């Protein structure tokens, strides 16, 4: 109502209580911290993606980069490393932002060009200072940038990768559960690059304990983390030593995690996980047994089946299709590894639902897959033999497979230009001719135009195949065959 004075505001006195300002600042700080975390999460997600696609990307925008003279680039890189050194030495206000900025600049130089100036960076002494940046308790953004620089250095030539050795213990340490997921992911990525470089590096990483934390990164459901960890692991257990694969499969919860991830819709993710399964099954019998028992087979089959139906949905040109194909191929490869194993494994596959699907795939899928499937089916019909000599037949399997119409698929392979595939086809034909009871084999082969297919090899340039085909024709369809001759 009508007051004595107007609505003039009272000014805050300059001499005020600290409590007012402080509480306000504290709240503001909480809001800022939240914003920074969101920002770094968003940035981390974007950064990793650039990285994943970097190989394919560089060429498409290399036109933007040509004008950067190599010498200028090298100069920039040396000074970026120097800048980083002084930022790390600096302890004053804004020190952390200074370090992050310097790291970011170096990382940009290391990731933007077709021939990244790795050597220059190493000569300038990048590794020791990057290792310093990985110190415990450093802020996430700093860890992330440093690990990213190291990732890119690791992607270089072998001797450049070697320079990373001093950084490995800290990179491994940051894989732990206490690290934020972007940091752990980036470190896993760097380690994956190192592991990919060769057996020598794999052994170093294994002896420093990289495997358990990477394996544990597979356990949660976070897509990108699992993908990166799976990729790094598949590099790490590549062999030839089977021990790491055995160690991996025994990690608590890993098998469950693999099963869980294979059920997920993310094709890229399942692809990486499938690779892990591939190496596990290829290298370790223990792993193979556990995988088979766990029902992974069933899952891979389902995977094949769903990918099969996806094919109908997605137009041929879609990039998703190739991802799907890749995944199926790997699944089939796993089966073929298993099928090449013990008789019990073979019986398992033979009696599983996989069989019908495999047979279906043999007649309908694209060539690559057809070949893998043929390999599985072929392997199902023989048991391992010691030494040389023809493989021993499992007649029961052969009869059932042939009975379900797989021969024509193999004969198609015989006709293909791919020597490996043709060999597979011929081998299977040999099994049929040799192993079907009551000499049914010859009739079947003849009915499916198998003779014609074999005769194409009469003058084939590959001696091996030529002899094999001619041998079969001579042996089963020679002078004494039928009434025609």
């Amino acid at each position, binding site marked *: *109502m*009508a007051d*004595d*004075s*107007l609505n*003039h505001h*009272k*000014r*805050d*006195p*300059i*001499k005020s*209580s*600290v*409590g007012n300002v*402080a*509480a306000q600042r*504290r*709240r503001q700080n*909480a*809001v800022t*911290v*939240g914003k920074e*975390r*969101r920002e770094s*999460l*968003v940035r981390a*997600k*974007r*950064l990793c*993606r*650039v990285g994943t*696609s970097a190989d*394919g*990307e560089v060429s*498409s*925008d290399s036109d933007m980069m040509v004008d950067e003279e190599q010498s200028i680039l090298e100069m920039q890189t040396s000074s970026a490393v120097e800048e980083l050194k002084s930022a790390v030495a600096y*302890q*004053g*206000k*804004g*020190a952390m932002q200074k370090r992050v*900025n310097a790291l*970011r600049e170096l990382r*940009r130089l290391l990731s933007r060009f077709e021939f990244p100036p790795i050597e220059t960076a190493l000569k300038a002494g990048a590794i020791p200072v990057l290792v310093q940046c990985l110190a*415990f*308790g450093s*802020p996430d953004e700093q860890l992330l940038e440093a690990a990213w620089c190291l990732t890119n250095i690791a992607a270089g030539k072998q001797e450049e990768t070697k320079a990373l050795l001093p950084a490995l213990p800290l990179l491994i340490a940051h894989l732990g559960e*206490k690290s934020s*997921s972007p940091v752990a992911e980036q470190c896993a990525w760097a380690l994956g690059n190192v592991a990919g470089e060769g057996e020598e590096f794999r052994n170093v990483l294994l002896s420093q304990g990289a495997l358990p934390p990477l394996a544990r990164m597979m356990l*949660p*459901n*976070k*897509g*990108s983390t699992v993908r990166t960890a799976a990729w790094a692991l598949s590099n790490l257990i590549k062999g030839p030593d089977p021990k790491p694969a055995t160690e991996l499969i025994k990690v608590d919860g890993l098998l469950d995690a693999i099963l869980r991830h294979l059920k997920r*819709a*993310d*094709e*890229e993710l399942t692809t990486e996980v499938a690779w892990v399964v591939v190496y596990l099954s290829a290298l370790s019998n223990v792993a193979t047994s556990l995988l088979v028992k766990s029902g992974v087979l069933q899952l891979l089959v389902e995977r094949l089946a769903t990918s099969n139906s996806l094919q109908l949905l997605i137009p041929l040109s879609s*990039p998703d299709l190739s991802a799907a194909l890749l995944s199926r191929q790997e699944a089939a490869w796993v089966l073929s590894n298993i099928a090449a194993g013990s008789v019990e494994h073979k019986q398992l596959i033979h009696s599983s639902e996989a069989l019908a699907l495999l047979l279906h795939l043999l007649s309908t899928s694209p060539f690559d897959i057809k070949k893998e499937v043929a390999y599985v089916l072929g392997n199902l019909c023989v048991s391992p033999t010691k030494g040389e000599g023809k493989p021993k037949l499992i007649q029961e399997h052969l009869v059932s497979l042939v009975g379900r119409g797989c021969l024509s698929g193999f004969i198609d392979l015989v006709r293909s230009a791919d020597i490996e595939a043709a060999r597979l086809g011929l081998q299977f034909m040999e099994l049929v001719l040799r192993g079907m009871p009551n000499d049914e084999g010859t009739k079947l082969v003849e009915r499916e135009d198998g003779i014609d297919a074999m005769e194409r090899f009469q003058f084939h340039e590959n001696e091996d195949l030529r002899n094999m085909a001619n041998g079969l024709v001579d042996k089963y369809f020679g002078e004494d065959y039928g009434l025609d001759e």
Partner: protein
Amino acid sequence: MAMEVTQVLLNAQSIDGTVRKHAEESLKQFQEQNLPSFLLSLSGELANDDKPVDSRKLAGLILKNALDAKEQHRKFELVQRWLSLDANVKTQIKTCLLNTLTSTVADARSTSSQVIAKVAGIELPQKQWPELIVSLLSNVHQLPAHVKQATLETLGYLCEEVSPDVVEQDHVNKILTAVVQGMNASEMNNDVRLAATRALYNALSFAQANFSNDMERDYIMRVVCEATQYAELKIRQAAFECLVSISSTYYEKLAPYMQDIYSITAKAVREDEEPVALQAIEFWSSICDEEIDILEEYGSDFTGNSDIPCFYFIKQALPALVPLLLEILLKQEEDQDQEEGAWNIAMAGGTCLGLVARTVGDDIVPLVIPFIEENIAKPDWRQREAATYAFGSILEGPSPDKLLHIVNVALSFMLSALTKDPNNHVKDTTAWTLGRIFEFLHGSTIGTPIITQANCQQIITVLLQSMKDTPNVAEKACGALYFLAQGYEDVGPSSPLTPFFQEIVQSLLTVTHREDAGESRLRTAAYETLNEVVRSSTDETAPMVLQLVPVIMMELHKTLEGQKLSSDEREKQGELQGLLCGCLQVIIQKLGSSEPTKYVFMQYADQIMGLFLRVFACRSATVHEEAMLAIGALAYAAGLDFAKYMPDFYKYLEMGLQNFEEYQVCAVTVGVVGDICRALEEKILPYCDGIMTQLLKDLSSNQLHRSVKPPIFSCFGDIALAIGENFEKYLMYAMPMLQSAADLSAHTANVDDDMTEYTNSLRNGILEAYSGIFQGFKNSPKTQLLIPYAPHILQFLDSMYMEKDMDELVMKTAIGLLGDLADTLGSNAGSLIQQSLTSKDFLNECLSSKDHMIKESAEWARLAINKAISV
């Protein structure tokens, strides 16, 4: 149709509670049963000179409250209700109101003035009641004095109520003419002059055109200046208030008058009564505000200049102004430091001196130093206090180099004064000045440190000693310690405070337990200082910070033990819990930021969370804001482990999101949802239905303060980032909200700075939401669900780009979103982006930005777009 309401209105003011209650009930019933008749009856009562003044006043007040309310949504309802009333009823009411202005009863006239202004506030923007202003002004100079006074008062309220753009210039001219004539010396009636002067205060914002006209402006200024000399105190005060308002609204027009204004204000400051003198000082403070803003804009290389040039009035007035201000520093009141909210000439003078220092920088130092030197050691406490106060006031503004010498000399003097001076005020101001020294001249940015190994020990000993002094002095000593600690926040691995850490913490805890810690906000200062000491500490003292955890937990536990509390005690309990939760928030943040300490700290997590939940349970309807903030910190430290607390915590989270009234609580809770999303990732999924429901309700509420809405949009992004493609089911609700908010924010004309700032924060929230959703869906088979939204988003980006009013943050977020869109949708986005109007220009502009965050986002976006286009 009107009814007899006199008795009911009188009863409603009865001392007898029952009678009063009954009357209030009947009024309410009457209003509900027949609103038009109710309003008519009230206006009839107000207009009727035969009725008692009390019933007339209450009738007017109820009428006024039927037209306006504080809460936006209620206000909107009332406006709609009035507009939909029958036209005849409205005309009758308005006639009654205007007739009341001629009443001989002053209270009735004044009440009616306010009601008329409220009706005008509703009707003028609708182009209704066009005759109002003309009829008020038609024969204003022939009216009897009391009617003239009421008319001017009405015009004043009217200008306060309606916005300048709904009144045509011709009417503005007439209003100003009437008002200025009413202020004129030729007007003999003081009531008329006072009403006119107050009316001018409100009418000033209408006078843009008149202030651009030299003749009219000269005339208005002359009348205002004359009014500052009238015999009647209230008129002088109102006239100075007009000058203060003019100084900010028409700063650039003031140059010709500054000489005169200086003389007038100096005389008022020295000789006039306090209310007038305070306004005269306020004029100079307000000029400082203007010049600080302008010079700040000069300094930022953003635009390179300001719309308004700086006239350097303060710099020119400096030789006369500074002595004037120093003089009044000696006019202290006896108990001003013990009294919260005290305001007097000396305090206003020091505050103005501080603003002058910020405006002119180095130039003030030589003008103040002699005053300090002359008075700092005088026997009269007023002189010592004024000298110290002057010193403390000028520490912000001048360059450190200019001050370092004198500060180094003064420091040991101040430390000894703080322990030895016999006067409480002097000690209070001395401790405050030490705080100012540490705030502005101590820290990693200052070349030569003023705190050295040699004096550090002494400084801390003195400050800790002073914390045992009277509450007001102890509070200032805490403040000094606060800034001392803050200056070491970037100190590196080893802090000079480390050797004293234990002692400092112990002393602060002792202060919090003082019997009189409730006075002078001492307890608050002690806890906030403890927080700052912890926040700025280094790894060296981490074990001691860890030891603090159970101590603070025990304190918090004690607040929960109390039995039945009175409402006063309950308020105190809530305040103390707030301080303790704030302290835990800082400790959790500190310990959570490094692995080894986080690991040890997490052993307490269950118990701490238990305490927080009990703090929440203390209250029935609201959640404790500080406890909520602390939980945000705990979630970040706990990560996935936080999931186990969710079942118990969830209901409070929901309660916080429902708190429309205390919107800060709602805002804090929205922030905590974000923290939890980042901590729990997919594990937050089971709670998302509830959270999203609440957030969507918040967004559609017109009760909720608008500042909470941008963070809610960002929170959508947080949720989508956490749960990925599971966000699918919320798309159909969230996307339309985002779209309409985007449309709204894309086309907001630049009304004022506040609006521009809000628009940008809203845009940022929307963009963050979209980015989170697109990133969340990336690599899922459901990305095609987002395709239909892409064209609208690209249009939104286009329109923002074309408006050219994005700030840096929005620009960075916007270009990032363009990349996310391309990244997630791939070839589906490629063609849309190629077709979009401005994407390419926008990208190029961002690529060549000087801001490296924008540039980096843009480089990423370029890669993503190239990839999408090449598929």
